[in-house]
C-alpha cells in the first residue's frame, strides 16, 4: 500500500464537509479542532499561513477518519490518494 505523506488541508476540510456534514470545527492557536457528535480530533493548522497552500501529514487524516467514524468509502472518494489507507 502506498500513499503520500502530505495532503492539502483545504482538501481535507472539503472532505469533512462532504463526508461528515454534521461536523463542526474551530481553530485554536495550534490546531483545528474537529467535532463529530461527542468525538474530537485535533488537526494541525498546517504549514502555511494560506489555507489554500497549507499541507498536513496524511497520518492526521487517516487517524481522524478512524477516530470520528467518518465513512471510509466516502473519505476515499473525496481523497483518492488515500483510498484504501484508512
Amino acid at each position, binding site marked *: 500500500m502506498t*500513499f503520500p*505523506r502530505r495532503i492539502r488541508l483545504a482538501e481535507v476540510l472539503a472532505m469533512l464537509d462532504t463526508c461528515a456534514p454534521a461536523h463542526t470545527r474551530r481553530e485554536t492557536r495550534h490546531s483545528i479542532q474537529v467535532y463529530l457528535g461527542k468525538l474530537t480530533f*485535533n488537526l494541525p493548522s498546517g504549514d502555511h499561513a494560506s489555507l489554500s497552500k497549507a499541507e498536513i*501529514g496524511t*497520518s*492526521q487524516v*487517516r*487517524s481522524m477518519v478512524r*477516530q470520528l467514524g467518518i465513512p471510509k468509502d466516502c473519505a476515499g472518494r473525496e481523497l483518492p490518494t488515500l483510498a484504501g489507507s484508512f
Partner: protein
Amino acid sequence: MTRYPMFFRHGGLVAGRGFIARVSVWGRCLFEKTDEDLCSFLGVNPGSVAGDGATLQEAHRDFLERVKLVVFDIADEATDYENFRQAVGRFVQDTSEENEADWQAAVARVRSGELDLPGYRRLDAHATEVRVHVELVAEQRDDDAVVEAQLRPGLNEAATDEPLEMAVGF
C-alpha cells in the same frame, strides 16, 4: 503495513491563565510502518492526535509535538488551573476505539512472537495504565505575569525536562 503497540511518556511545563503547571503523560499509540517505510504514530490515548515522519524517530517526535501543542491550546483556554487539570485529563483519556482495537491486536501478535520491535523495552499491556499527572508549580496573580511566563525561554517550549520514552506493549 505493520502496526506496533506502543506506550509513550511525555511531559513538561505549561503556563496558563493564573498558573504554571507540570504535565506528565503516559499514553498509548500505534506505530505504523508501510512497505514504503512511511512512518506514522496514531494516538490511542490520547486518540485525537497523530504524527508522521520518514523514520520512527521523526514520526515519534511529530506525535509528541502534537500532544504538546494540544496541551498548550488547553492551557490557553482554561479559566484556571483546576479547569486545565480536568481538561488535560479528558484529552488523554479520550480513546480512539478503532486504534485501540488495532493496538490490542498488535499486542496479541507481540505476545505470540509474530511481531517485535528490537531496541525497545516491553511493558505488560494489561498491567500498564494510561495516566496523566498535572501538578501546580506556581500561581500567577495577574494576566501580565502569565504572558511573561509564556514568553520565558524554555517555558511552553519543547518538553525536554523529562526523557522521551517509548516501550512496546506485550
